């Protein structure tokens, strides 16, 4: 979308590098990672375990700092976490003492959103990023809307420990969407769910996002999930983590995708190409060689 001369990207990662100390020796987790995400785009990051995909997402969220490079949202550099980049975690991020509705409403009672409610607040915390943030009556109504959209009305007064894993992730997504974040960051949000629940969540998220028009950066190890959900898939290769390849997914638009699509030749072709890249960049190939050598040694008794 858009020409090359205007800043049309919502998010820009510029030459991100990350080194950290692990017991005295320096580990290079990421090196020179650059990519853009356009406004309204759904980008998935996949890669072998240890390729630094979660670290990358956490740097963009501001939960960790990059050693080199910078993260730009709407052309402005970001420092530290903020509500314009809400994050959905794999699990254990809900507040067990709050009901489902109060979990979703959590950010309404935070200072950043409260002060925007009344105009008389003494000039603090005016929303820094246009478009994000929600306050007052609008926020309460939006919480109820998200409750309904996510199919959580029946459990609005339940506590998280009474919910299934899938329902808990619906709450986490609704909570993150409440303040209309510029960027929704998802770190393997369905990684702890069973296959059937995951399928339901995939269709749910495609519909919600078509309605919400958010920009998404989604980390997963599940290539099928990435291809089904994303507009583009970035393959991150390990040692240190770098962008191996970027795949544009040309499938029917989000709302026309169904589970059957996962079995179509076109879908399977993209999926196997991406899986091939991940295998080529990980150590798994050599493990297989070692296995063949071992089994060739007539060890069967």
């Amino acid at each position: 979308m858009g020409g090359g001369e205007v800043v049309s990207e919502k998010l820009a990662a510029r030459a991100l590098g990350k080194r950290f100390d692990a017991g005295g020796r320096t580990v290079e987790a990421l090196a020179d990672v650059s990519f853009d995400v356009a406004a309204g785009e759904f980008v998935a990051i996949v890669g072998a375990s240890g390729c630094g995909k979660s670290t990358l997402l956490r740097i963009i969220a501001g939960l960790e700092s990059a050693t080199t490079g910078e993260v730009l949202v709407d052309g402005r550099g970001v420092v530290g976490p903020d509500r314009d980049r809400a994050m959905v975690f794999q699990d254990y991020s809900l507040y067990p003492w709050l009901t489902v509705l109060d979990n979703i409403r959590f950010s309404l009672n935070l200072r950043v959103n409260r002060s925007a409610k009344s105009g008389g607040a003494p000039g603090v915390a005016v929303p820094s990023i246009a478009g994000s943030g929600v306050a007052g009556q609008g926020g309460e109504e939006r919480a109820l809307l998200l409750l309904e959209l996510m199919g959580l009305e029946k459990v609005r007064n339940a506590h998280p420990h009474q919910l299934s894993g899938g329902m808990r992730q619906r709450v986490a997504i609704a909570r993150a969407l409440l303040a209309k974040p510029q960027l929704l960051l998802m770190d393997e949000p369905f990684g702890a769910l069973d296959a059937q629940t995951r399928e339901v969540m995939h269709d749910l998220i495609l519909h919600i996002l078509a309605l919400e028009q958010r920009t998404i950066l989604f980390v997963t190890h599940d290539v099928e999930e990435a291809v089904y959900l994303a507009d583009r898939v970035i393959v991150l290769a390990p040692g240190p983590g770098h962008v191996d390849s970027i795949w544009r997914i040309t499938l029917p638009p989000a709302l026309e995708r169904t589970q059957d699509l996962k079995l179509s030749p076109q879908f399977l072709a993209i999926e196997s190409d991406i899986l091939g890249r991940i295998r080529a960049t990980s150590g798994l190939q050599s493990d297989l060689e070692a296995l063949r050598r071992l089994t060739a040694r007539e060890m069967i008794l």
Partner: protein
Amino acid sequence: MKHSLWVVRGPLSRRLYLLIATLSFCLWIAVWWAVTALELVDPLFLPGPGAVLRRSLGWLMDGSLLSDAGISVFRVTAGFLLSAVMALPLGLVIGAYRPVRAFFEPLLEFARYLPAVAFVPVVLLWVGIGESSKIMVIWIGTFFQMVIMLSEDVTRVPLPQIEAARTLGAGGGEIVARVLLRSSMPAMFDTLRITLGWAWTYLVVAELVAANSGLGYAILKAQRFLQTDRIFVGIIVIGLIGLGTDQLLRFIHRRIFPWAGARS
């Protein structure tokens, strides 16, 4: 299908649990009674259940058992509350901020190995032999442990809860008050329940050394007159008060934190 009771970590019905627990209690009383009734042990060393029961009734009738227990409960409560009121905010900030932990931790780790009992003479020197000396001994015995345990409760709050709050726009103070405090409350409540038990230990120490009332003092006095049965009454009463408060606090815990104990 009938399940064996001897499956490792196997299930056990509530009814059967209570039955076994009651049997155990009766069994130990019966052993106690048998040992003394058969005069296997000199009553001076181990009085029988009957003698202890008679003594406790007599002690109760002359009114001093209740007042002794009352003053002891007061001292434990005061010393424990003083510790808790100081330890809760300190434990919370130590658990929340690493620099605060770095500042206090070495001091606390050192202080918790200080023998509270050995402080009794100095405490008497500092605050005299009034109520404050007993309260202060309990404070010395419980405070340092309590701070360390409470700060550990705070550090066990799942990281995603904190990070989710940060990406939702919460500031540092808001995370401490709305996430760390709320999330660690059930664990903190348990920590307080456990340290309350220790407070009783230090109470008896304080009363043995410097008091003229209370259950600990009564035990010391009974020792002078070789009234072993009275010593046993004192010990059993402290045990019962401890057990009662513990069960009450467990009950309250279940009522006010119904969501605790399940991770989410």
